[in-house]
């Protein structure tokens, strides 16, 4: 990769002139910590005392028996503080913000996990914090909005565009071009202009480093396959990075097929021909766009996967066939979530449940002497409203009605 952050033809830094100096400064500081042999240790120390690192690698015995194929291991990123892998990136960038001497952080959020993680980091480090969140996502993820506000962040619902993740990113950039002297934009995924794809992947690589060591300790060999869901691609980059050099390990990214790939209502950029190469939000990658280059509406039951672009690093892995990309529909995801809860007592986030659904389609065909790892990027209790709707749970509905009655009184 060259200094402008290209991965094959993907990546780059398509930034407005006003941010040029800000990015120079960011690249210099990021290179500083990368080359500082003490930084990584301080980062690991922070993550092991403030979050729950190393997160466990759980053997899912019941699921393994259920499918009768390879042994299923689950990397438990849901056990991070704030309940998702987002904490890794956010705390890393928080340390960087301290080095840069800035006092305010802003972030976009889709599912709300990145927003909650950023609000947490801001509270801990004493930064002012503003979170941009699409209006549609504010409605789907109210509990996360509640927690962000309780931790002192200002949550701004974005009412422009499609009112989801990409629109929140645009709005965060608009804030940044006004306030860059005091403010760092904590981009939540391995997308956007250089150095973000590299920097976010760098912090998330802690997942892959741990998982590789853990599986070798447990099984004495590497997994046949590693599964991760892919929205922007940060949890996938995190776990894949631990296994990419190993020829025997297939990295499988699972995208959101939404209501079905054929319906067009999905967010699958790499496993379909629906996306094409374009330049938006500061970087070049595969986007779901029309012939003119206008971005299309996307759909996923999981707010965190509902994104038009994808990490330029993953686009390059896709083109080079170094990773394989599949998809799972909303329906398959709900079924995978239900099965995982009932067999293992583990509640994956709807985003993560895509990785489970992708793995469940294949694991029965692998021999029992092999093993696989599923990255559980986050926990699902944040999704209680969406999941309860999907399960059409009558008792839940009755409870909400009663609660609403209490508020009215």
């Amino acid at each position: 990769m060259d200094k402008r952050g290209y991965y094959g033809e993907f990546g780059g830094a398509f930034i407005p002139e006003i941010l040029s100096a800000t990015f120079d400064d960011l690249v210099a500081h990021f290179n500083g910590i990368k080359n500082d042999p003490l930084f990584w240790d301080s980062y690991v120390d922070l993550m092991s005392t403030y979050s729950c690192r190393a997160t466990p690698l759980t053997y899912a015995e019941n699921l393994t028996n259920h499918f009768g194929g390879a042994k299923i291991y689950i990397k438990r990123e849901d056990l991070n503080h704030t309940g998702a892998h987002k904490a890794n990136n956010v705390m890393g960038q928080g340390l960087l913000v301290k080095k840069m001497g800035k006092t305010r952080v802003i972030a976009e959020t889709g599912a709300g996990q990145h927003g909650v993680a950023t609000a947490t980091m801001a509270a801990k480090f004493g930064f002012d914090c503003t979170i941009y969140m699409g209006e549609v996502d504010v409605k789907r993820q109210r509990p996360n909005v509640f927690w962000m506000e309780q931790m002192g962040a200002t949550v701004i619902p974005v009412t422009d565009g499609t009112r989801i993740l990409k629109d929140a990113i645009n709005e965060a950039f608009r804030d940044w071009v006004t306030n860059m002297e005091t403010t760092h934009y904590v981009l939540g995924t391995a997308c956007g202009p250089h150095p973000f794809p590299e920097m976010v992947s760098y912090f998330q690589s802690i997942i892959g480093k741990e998982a590789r060591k853990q599986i070798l300790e447990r099984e004495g060999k590497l997994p046949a396959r590693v599964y991760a869901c892919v929205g922007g691609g940060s949890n996938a980059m995190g776990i894949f990075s631990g296994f990419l050099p190993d020829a025997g390990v297939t990295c499988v990214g699972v995208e959101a097929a939404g209501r079905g790939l054929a319906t067009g209502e999905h967010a699958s950029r790499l496993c379909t021909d629906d996306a094409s190469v374009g330049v938006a939000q500061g970087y070049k990658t595969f986007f779901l766009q029309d012939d003119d280059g206008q971005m299309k509406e996307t759909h996923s039951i999981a707010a965190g996967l509902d994104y038009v672009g994808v990490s330029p690093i993953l686009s390059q892995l896709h083109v080079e066939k170094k990773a394989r990309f599949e998809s799972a529909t909303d329906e398959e995801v709900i079924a995978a979530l239900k099965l995982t809860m009932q067999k293992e007592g583990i509640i994956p986030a709807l985003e993560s449940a895509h990785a489970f659904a992708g793995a469940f389609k294949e694991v029965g065909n692998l021999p029992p002497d092999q093993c696989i790892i599923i990255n559980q990027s986050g926990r699902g209790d944040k999704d209680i409203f969406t999941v309860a709707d999907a399960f059409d749970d009558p008792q839940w509905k009755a409870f909400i009605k009663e609660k609403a009655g209490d508020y009215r009184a």
Partner: protein
Amino acid sequence: MTIVLEAYIREKREKKDILLMTHIVLGYPSMEASMEIVAQMVAAGVDLMELQIPFSEPMADGPVILKANQKALEAGVRVADCFKFAKEATKRFEIPFLFMTYTNILFKYGMEAFAGDMARAGIKGAIVPDLPPEEGDAYLNAMAEQGCHPVYIFSPTTTDERMELLSGKGSGLMYCMARKGVTGKETTFSHDLDTYLDRCKKATDLPLAVGFGVKDKEDVAYLKGKADIAVIGSQTIRIVNEQGIDAVGPFIRNLQ
């Protein structure tokens, strides 16, 4: 060929203290209305115009222009319609027109095809705020091939060295952002701006156009002697929103 726009600006400047450049979003509120707005602006004495090809992710634009982009796209405006519009406008009106849009519109169209069709439509140059020179090789080659001006932007955070780099890559004019932020917000015209514009002047021989927050007669008057062109962007769209298309002509006349 590269001298065309500059020569026009120099010549006009001999007769006027400051020139006016305006900005519209093509297809907002409709293609017909856009053409009518251009006609009114030209009749009122506008010297140059930026025609924005709408894009779904206009990252550098503030709420007014952002909404105009969205509305134009919702109404079904295609890039081909914008080229058709450009061809007609350049035929009907004498003033130079520039395209303003975002990288992806050019990238999907193909840099060479875009520059070629631009030249054939009589458009003099382009402003592409998310295409810095570091990423601009294909664009710069295509524009040079067609004799179109790539217009670059100076911002208050641009260093002197970088200003020289941008000046070397750009042609036609330099667009100077009067302040940080996105389009359409308030700007304080003050001593800081003067110092910055002095820096701009030292860094380039190209004519200076100043935009971002320029909205009334006072602002335009302030820029006299400090810049060659005052750029009115969001404010004319606001006028259309609030008072209708017919208010555009009187508004422009009142600026000078």
